[in-house]
C-alpha cells in the first residue's frame, strides 16, 4: 500500500512560490510542480491557520470540528476566551481514521494537536511553548528518544517563541529582520530533522508536517517576497534582506529534495497550504467604527493605542473587559478572525439584545457595514463581503463562532484595539491571509502536469485516504478529487465509502454528533424526553 506524506507549507501561495521557481530559488519545487497535479486550494472562512488545518486533517468544516480561530470562547455559554487545543477538536482526525484501518500515522507541528491525540503513531504538536513539548508529545518517550538519537535536537529551537512570533503581525525593526529569518530557518531545520528521523526509523503510512515559517516570513516581509512590490532600483538593504528571505525558501526547497529521496515511487507527496497570502496597506479599527455608529461603548480599561502601532490586538485574549457591555450591541475581540459578536441576553451575556431583536439588528448591522463603513477620503466601501455564522459555521459548534465574519477590501485583518480613528495607512505593506492556497500532489496514478479545478479544504482528507486505498468515512464533507488521478487509475480503483467517523475520546459522552441519524440513539433520546415530560 502507498504511503502519503503531507508536506504542509503554512500560508504558501503561488504568487510567491512561482516567482521563486522563476528566479531559481526553488528548483525542486518547480520540478515537482511540473510532474504533479496541482491547483488552488480554497481555505475556510475566515482563511486562518487553526480552522483551516483542522479542516484539512478532519475533512469537516469549522462548525463541525469546533475550531474557529486561535482564540475562542471557552464554551457556548462562557464569556471567557481561550487558546484552542486538541480538546476543542470535536471530530476525528485523519490520523485516527487511518489508525482504525490498521495504519500508523505521524504528525508534526500541527496546530490544535496539544494535548496529543493518542494515535497509533507519533505526534509533536505545534504552537506550544518549549517547556510543554515533551509533556504534550506522543508517545511519552518520543522526545527523550529524539534527544538520544538526533544530533543537534534542541527543543527550545523547535518550539514557538511567542514573543518572537508576535513580530510577524506586530512588526519589527529593520535590524531584527535577518536574525528573525535565521530563527525560522533554525526552527524548520529542527522540524525537518525530526521528519527525516521518523521516516527512517518509525515507519508510518501517513505522515504530515507543517512548516510555518512560510506564513511568518510572508506576514512581516511581504514587501520583499511579492514580485509585484519589487522596487525599480532596489537598494543594498532591500537586496540583502530579500536574499535572506530567499535563503529560507532555499532551505524549504532543500527539505523537499531530501524528502523526495526518502520516499519511493509507490508513495504520494502532497504539498498543501492552509491559505494563501497577499498584501495589505491599511488598518480598519473596527471597534472604533462600531463606536462611531453607536453600537459600542469602551470600558475605562480600554487604552488608546499609538497611531504608529502596527499591532492589531491578537495578542490580548481577554478583550471582553475592554467594553462596557451594558451599552454595547456589537464588538470584535480577535483581529485574526475578522469576526463581530452581537451580545444577546442569556447564555454568554447577562446583558444585550433580547433574543427576538437579534435578526433585525443583525440585518441592520450587515447593511451598515456593507454600505456605510467607508474610506473617509474616497467614500469607497471597506467591507466587501459578510458571512453570517449560519453561512460560515453551520454545524453543532456554530455558537462558538462570531455572528458576522467580514472580508475587507484588501483582505486585511481588522484591528480590535482602540485606535485614534477608524482607518489609517499601515507604516509599510504587511502580508495577510488570502483564501487561495496551494495543493500539489504526486504519486502512483497521478495525472502529472494536470491543472486541477479549485479544491476545498474538506477535499484533502478524502483524497489522501483514497490514495492510501482506505475507506472514506461517509460523514466527511468533501470529495475525492478524482481529477488528481488518471481516469484509468480511478476506474481501476473505485473509492470505498466506510462507516462514519468516531467521536474523539476527550468529548463528554452526552454530546453526540449524530443522534438524529442513529435510530437506536434517537429512540433513547425520545425515551429521555418523555421521561422529562417534554413530550407525550
Amino acid at each position: 500500500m502507498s504511503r502519503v506524506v503531507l508536506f504542509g507549507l503554512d500560508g504558501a501561495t503561488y504568487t510567491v512560490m512561482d516567482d521563486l521557481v522563476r528566479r531559481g530559488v526553488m528548483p525542486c519545487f518547480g520540478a515537482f510542480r511540473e510532474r504533479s497535479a496541482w491547483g488552488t486550494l480554497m481555505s475556510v472562512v475566515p482563511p486562518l491557520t487553526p480552522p483551516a488545518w483542522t479542516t484539512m486533517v478532519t475533512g469537516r468544516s469549522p462548525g463541525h470540528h469546533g475550531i474557529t480561530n486561535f482564540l475562542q470562547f471557552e464554551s457556548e455559554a462562557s464569556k471567557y476566551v481561550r487558546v484552542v487545543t486538541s480538546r476543542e477538536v470535536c471530530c476525528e482526525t485523519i490520523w485516527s481514521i487511518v489508525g482504525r484501518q490498521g495504519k500508523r500515522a505521524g504528525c508534526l507541528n500541527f496546530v490544535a494537536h496539544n494535548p496529543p491525540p493518542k494515535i497509533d503513531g507519533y505526534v509533536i504538536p505545534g504552537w506550544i511553548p518549549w517547556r510543554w513539548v515533551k509533556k504534550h508529545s506522543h508517545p511519552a518517550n518520543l522526545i527523550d528518544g529524539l534527544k538520544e538519537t538526533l544530533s543537534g535536537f534542541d527543543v527550545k529551537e523547535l518550539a514557538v517563541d511567542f514573543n518572537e512570533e508576535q513580530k510577524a503581525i506586530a512588526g519589527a525593526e529593520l535590524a531584527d529582520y535577518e536574525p528573525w529569518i535565521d530563527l525560522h530557518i533554525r526552527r524548520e531545520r529542527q522540524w525537518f530533522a525530526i521528519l527525516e528521523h521518523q521516516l527512517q526509523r518509525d515507519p508510518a503510512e501517513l505522515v504530515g508536517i507543517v512548516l510555518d515559517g512560510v506564513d511568518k516570513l510572508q506576514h512581516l516581509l511581504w514587501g520583499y517576497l511579492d514580485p509585484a512590490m519589487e522596487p525599480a532600483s532596489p537598494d543594498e538593504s532591500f537586496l540583502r534582506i530579500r536574499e535572506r528571505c530567499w535563503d529560507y525558501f532555499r532551505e524549504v526547497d532543500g527539505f523537499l529534495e531530501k524528502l523526495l529521496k526518502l520516499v519511493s515511487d509507490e508513495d504520494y507527496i502532497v504539498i498543501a497550504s492552509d491559505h494563501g497570502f497577499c498584501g495589505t496597506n491599511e488598518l480598519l479599527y473596527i471597534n472604533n467604527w462600531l463606536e462611531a455608529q453607536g453600537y459600542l461603548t469602551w470600558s475605562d480599561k480600554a487604552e488608546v493605542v499609538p497611531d504608529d502601532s502596527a499591532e492589531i490586538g491578537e495578542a490580548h485574549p481577554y478583550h471582553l473587559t475592554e467594553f462596557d457591555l451594558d451599552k454595547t450591541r456589537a464588538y470584535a475581540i480577535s483581529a485574526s478572525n475578522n469576526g463581530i459578536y452581537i451580545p444577546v441576553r442569556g447564555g454568554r451575556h447577562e446583558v444585550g439584545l433580547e433574543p427576538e431583536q437579534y435578526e433585525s439588528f443583525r440585518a441592520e448591522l450587515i447593511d451598515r457595514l456593507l454600505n456605510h463603513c467607508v474610506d473617509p477620503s474616497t467614500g469607497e466601501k471597506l467591507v466587501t463581503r459578510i458571512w453570517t455564522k449560519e453561512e460560515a459555521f453551520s454545524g453543532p459548534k456554530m455558537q462558538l463562532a462570531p455572528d458576522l465574519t467580514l472580508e475587507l477590501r484588501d483582505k486585511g485583518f481588522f484591528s480590535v484595539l482602540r485606535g485614534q480613528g477608524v482607518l489609517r495607512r499601515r507604516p509599510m505593506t504587511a502580508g495577510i491571509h488570502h483564501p487561495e492556497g496551494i495543493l500539489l500532489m504526486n504519486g502512483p496514478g497521478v495525472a502529472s502536469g494536470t491543472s486541477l479545478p479549485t479544491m476545498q479544504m474538506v477535499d484533502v482528507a478524502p483524497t489522501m485516504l483514497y490514495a492510501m486505498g482506505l475507506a472514506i468515512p461517509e460523514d466527511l464533507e468533501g470529495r475525492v478529487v478524482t481529477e488528481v488521478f488518471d481516469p484509468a487509475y480511478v476506474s481501476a480503483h473505485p473509492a470505498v465509502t466506510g462507516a462514519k467517523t468516531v467521536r474523539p475520546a476527550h468529548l463528554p459522552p452526552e454530546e453526540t454528533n449524530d443522534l438524529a441519524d442513529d435510530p437506536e440513539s434517537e429512540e433513547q433520546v425520545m425515551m429521555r424526553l418523555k421521561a422529562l415530560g417534554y413530550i407525550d
Partner: protein
Amino acid sequence: MATRDRNALREEVLKILTDLREDWEYSDEITEQTGIFKDLEFESIDAVAMGSAIEEHFNQSLPFAEFLTKANERQAEDITVGEVLDFLLENLKPAQEAKS
C-alpha cells in the same frame, strides 16, 4: 457528592509540573506556595498549556480561561500552585462522575 482529596490532588498536579523540569532550569521544590509566573517563570501561554495538561489528566473540561482572566482582572501578581488546587477542588467533578 464525593469530593476530591486535596493531598491526592496536590500530588497529581505536582507530578504534572515536576515532569516538565528535565528540560528546564528549575531545580527548587515545587510546593503549594510556588508561584507559576514568578517562580516557575511561566509565560501566559505556559499557563494555558498547563490548563490543557490538567484537563487531559483528569479528562474533563475546566473553566481555566475564566480562572486566568479573573486573576488578570484583579491584577494578581502571581498564581500559586495552591490557588490552582483551590480552583480544581472547586471545579473538578469527582473521579467516578467524570467517567460517566
